[in-house]
Structures are given as C-alpha cells and as structure tokens.
C-alpha cells in the first residue's frame, strides 16, 4: 500500500531506502543533504528492518564502508554533496573497478572548492565522465521531483545489481530541500544472507567448503589481464547504453525548438515552455532521466525536426557538450544557465532561447 506524505527530497531518499529493503547507509554530514542521515537516525531502521546506519568520520570512510558492504552483496548507499563527493572519487573508481553495486546520492551545490550551499548542476562532468581515475562509468539518474528522489532509490539498486556497477543519483540542493507530496512504496523485506549466497556468488559471505572463494579486488598487475578486464567493462557499458536510456519528452510533437534540461532546471523549463508558447514560440523539452547513458538517439531524432536546442543547466555549460556530440552539427545547440548557486528564472530561459537560438 503506497502512502502519501509531504516531505523534502532528502527525507524521501531516507524513507525510500528503508522501505525498499536497503541493508546499510554510511554517510558524513554536509549541507544541503544532511536530512538524509538525520531522517535515517530518527527513523531507527536497525530496530525495524535491521538496516545499519552509521555516521562515518569522513566521506572517504563512508564510500569505503559502502565498498565493504557492497562486497558482501548487501544493498548499501551513501549520500553527500559536491565537496564530499569529490572526496569519494577514489572510492568510486575502486567500486567500479571491483564491479560492486551500490548507490551514491549527490545533492549538488555550487562550486568549485567549498563553493556555496545553494543548488547547482556543475557536477555533471564529474558524474558522467568519470571523476576518478581509469576508464569507468557511473550509471547516473537525475530526479526532477521529490517523487523521483524516492522512486530512484530502488531503481538505482536494481540497476546497480543488474550490471554490478555503482549508480549515482545526481540531484541538487533545490530537489533535496524542497517539499512536495510523495507516494512512498510499501515496505519490502531485506534480502536474506541465504538469498545473497545463492544469487550473488561473488559476494564475500565466507567461503563454504567446496565453493569457489570470493575475492573482491580491482588490482591486475598483468597488463594484458587488465586490458581484458577493461574490454569486459566497456562491453558492459555498451549494454547499459543499449538498454537503460531513460528520458521524458514534454510537448515535443509540434516543437520548433527544444530545451534539454534535467533535475531542477527541467522544472524551471516547464514554466519557460508555458511562457514561450503563450508568446507563440513552439518549444518543447527533452528531459534526460539517465545522464549516463545519455539519450543520444532521441536527440538525433529531434535534430531532424527542430530548428535549434538550448541546453539549460545550472552550470557554465557541461551537458551541452553531450547534446552537441549527439546532434553533431545538424542544428544549432547553445547553453544557458546561471551558476555558482544562483538559479535561472523561467523568463530568463525564454530570453536566452530568443537571443541564442531563435535570433540566429
């Protein structure tokens, strides 16, 4: 039975984690996402579902606790905001290199450096291009509502275990802090150790007599073995790109122009569409839900139909590079966005569309 509640996006992450049967959360406080751990500590899931919740000494420790838990085949997550996620990059590349499933929530704030605590989308590159060292990818989901904050937790665990790969929920300070109504899923039981032993043979649950032992590692000193492993990783990423692209199209059918926007920027653009259409400009929006894998084919299709695209992001222009790669010069693609913690208004976005795309 789904339950209707009013809450912040950060709180929704915590409730969804408990309800979907997560085994563990390890985190370190940082604004604007501290409500995730605060909610978990208030809910005390260790007394109900048996979920472990632990405040670590740093984000470095948090992500490595996630590594330890994931290595046991447990469904574990962490959350943080930009500076903390930067500290986690070492752990993320080890998780990817050891093919461990886990969920990381980044409630992005303005940077660089200590930056600001207000919302931003300037961690796009870090999330979808790597962030840590080596050739790896994070499956990256971008929620645009409190409901999606809740829904994407279980979806992320499903994808993480399907591909044995870390999954990032790339949110921002606006989605994390704003309150909306949200339908929470019913409580689902946690996996039993027996289930994990049967279904995830790779997990370190103790070596049973006669069984192959489990070794979780990312080290291959023989370069040819390491190259083979990289080929295997790349094959996995091609499969992810084939199967897991998710997006939403809004008013694209008759559109002459489209916004490409995700997360809170997509919410702003919904209003911009109303304003523009009232002025007679036929504009729609492609909202990527997965930032990796990116909706390349859909953008290529739309490029046959529209006269131009505006990538609207709370950054100096990051996703716009992927939009341009997809469109490959077929139509003009420009970027618009406020950044450093300032959010653009719907009107500013329409002005940018008129000046940067329609004006040409």
């Amino acid at each position, binding site marked *: 039975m789904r339950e209707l509640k009013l809450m912040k996006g950060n709180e929704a992450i915590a409730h969804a984690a408990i309800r979907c049967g997560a*085994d*563990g959360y*390890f985190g370190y406080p940082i604004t604007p996402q501290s409500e995730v751990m605060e909610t978990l500590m208030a809910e005390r899931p260790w007394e109900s579902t048996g979920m*472990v919740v*632990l405040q*670590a*000494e*740093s984000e*470095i*420790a*948090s992500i*490595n*606790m*996630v*590594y*330890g*838990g994931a*290595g*046991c085949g*447990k469904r*574990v997550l962490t959350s943080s905001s930009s500076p903390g996620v930067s500290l986690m990059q*070492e*752990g993320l590349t*080890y998780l990817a290199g*050891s093919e461990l499933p886990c969920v990381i929530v980044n409630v992005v704030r303005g940077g660089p450096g200590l930056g600001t605590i207000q919302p931003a989308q300037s961690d796009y590159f870090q999330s979808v291009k790597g962030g840590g060292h080596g050739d790896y990818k994070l499956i990256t989901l971008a929620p645009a509502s409190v409901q999606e904050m809740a829904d994407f937790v279980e979806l992320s665990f499903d994808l993480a275990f399907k591909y044995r790969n870390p999954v990032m929920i790339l949110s921002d300070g606006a989605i994390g802090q704003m309150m909306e109504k949200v339908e929470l899923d019913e409580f689902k039981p946690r996996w039993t*150790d027996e289930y994990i032993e049967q279904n995830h043979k790779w997990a*370190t*649950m*103790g*070596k*049973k*007599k006669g069984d192959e*032992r*489990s*070794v*979780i*590692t*990312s*080290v291959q000193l023989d370069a040819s073995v390491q190259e083979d492993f990289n080929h295997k990783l790349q094959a996995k990423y091609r499969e992810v790109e084939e199967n897991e692209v998710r997006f939403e199209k809004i008013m694209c059918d008759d559109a002459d122009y489209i916004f490409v926007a995700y997360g809170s920027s997509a919410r702003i653009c919904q209003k911009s569409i109303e304003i523009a259409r009232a002025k007679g400009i036929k504009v729609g929006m492609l909202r990527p839900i997965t930032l990796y894998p990116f909706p390349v084919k859909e953008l290529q299709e739309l490029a046959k139909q529209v006269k131009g695209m505006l990538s609207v992001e709370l950054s100096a222009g990051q996703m716009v590079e992927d939009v341009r790669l997809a469109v490959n010069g077929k139509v003009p693609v420009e970027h618009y966005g406020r950044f450093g913690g300032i959010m653009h208004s719907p009107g500013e976005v329409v002005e940018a569309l008129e000046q940067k795309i329609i004006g040409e």
Partner: protein
Amino acid sequence: MADTNTIISPENLVYKKTDVLLDNVMHYCPGCTHGTVHKLIAEVIDEMGIQETTIGIAPVGCAVLAYNYLDIDWQEAAHGRAPALATAVKRLLPNKNVFSYQGDGDLAAIGTAETIHACNRGENIVMVFINNGIYGMTGGQMAPTTLPGMPASTCPAGRDTSHDGMPIKISELLAQLPGTCYVTRQSAHTAANVRKTKKALRKAFENQQANKGTSLVEVVSTCSSGWKMSPVQANKWMEEHMFAYYPLGDMKDE
C-alpha cells in the same frame, strides 16, 4: 641408516602446512616477515575452525596480494581504507570473523583517520599491523614509522627528525582509545616470538568472538630489501634498533 621414507610416515608427522594456506608461491622477498604472519593467521583460522566464516581485508602495500595465500573470502581495499571496509563488513555480517591486514604506511600514514576512528568506535574486528619501518612495495621510501637516522630512498641521509618529525607509535596511541580491548606488539623473528605472535593473533580472534571490541596485533617486522641487509643482519638490526623504539609486549589487554 634410517630410510627417510620411514621417518616421514604419517604416524611420525608432528607438523604439516595448514590447508588454509594456499600453495601459491609467495611473492615476498627472502627474509620477509609477511610470509610467517600469513602462515600464523592461517593456522589460527584453521585451529579455531573459522575458515568458512572469516573475511579478510587486504591493504595496499606489499601485502596487496595477501588474498593469493589464504583460502578464505577477501576484499582488497584502497590504500589505508581497510578499517572502513572491515567496519561495514562486520556490521552487516556480525556473525562473521573480520580482520584487516595492513602495513605501516597503510595503517599509520594514509589510513590514520580510518584506523583511529574504527578503533575509537570499538569496531569488533581484528587489525593485524605489520610494522617494518619502510615502504616495501614502492621501493623503500620513508614510512611514518621509519626510525630517526634510518636511511630510506626519500631520506637517503637517514630520517631527519627536525624535518620529518619522530616516528609515530600508533599502537600506543590506539591503546588510549576506549574502543580497543587488546593492543599488543610482537615480532616473528625467532621460534619463541613466532609462538607468542600466534598466541596474540588467537587472542585477538577470540576477543572478536566475545564481542570485546577492536584488537590490534602489531608485528615489528624486517624488510631485508628495503633495509638493504641480509635477512640475518636485518633481524639483528631489528632487535638492536626497532625494539628499542618499539618495545615488545602488551599495551592493553582487557
């Protein structure tokens, strides 16, 4: 003259290699302490009958490939992060036996925060700490535990304490924390010391089964290659210099 085949008949065998120790040829240098400590952990696991329930956390350093030698489940950690991994493994699998195996650079330099906080929380784990006063795997650089005046590739004239500070006595520091129940410093360079170290390791695993908190077993070790000495010289140098700064014995046993 007695036939050797008669002498090694099954009824005469008083010692054999534990099955927990795999047959893979170890990559360690001649005279290295790692092999001995690996064997001792394997024997303790065997004798306690916990092979099926033990999970090891390997470090970055010379023991990065420790999982090639002990026939148990392992996770290989990033440099210094083994206590964080062990924390989560033990909390999510409280009925398993969890130990980290770390060198001095791993445990007392890059992983100091993870080490101190795991011990301070009293994580119910065993930490095995190999202190040879040098970075072996990367080729003999200065460690946090390198002795004053001791040469290393990043302090070729010897550790200058006015420049690099004094070596850290991390075990003494960890013994101050209420979360640790057992902190001991041993060595493995004589038969008598090998027996003592094995006893210490056994106690550490028994503490874990009794939910007593963090047990830390430091083993003052040699690194013949890094120290540029023969194994015999290294043992002698360790006795004369390392034991003077890192005295053997229990710092805490509750």
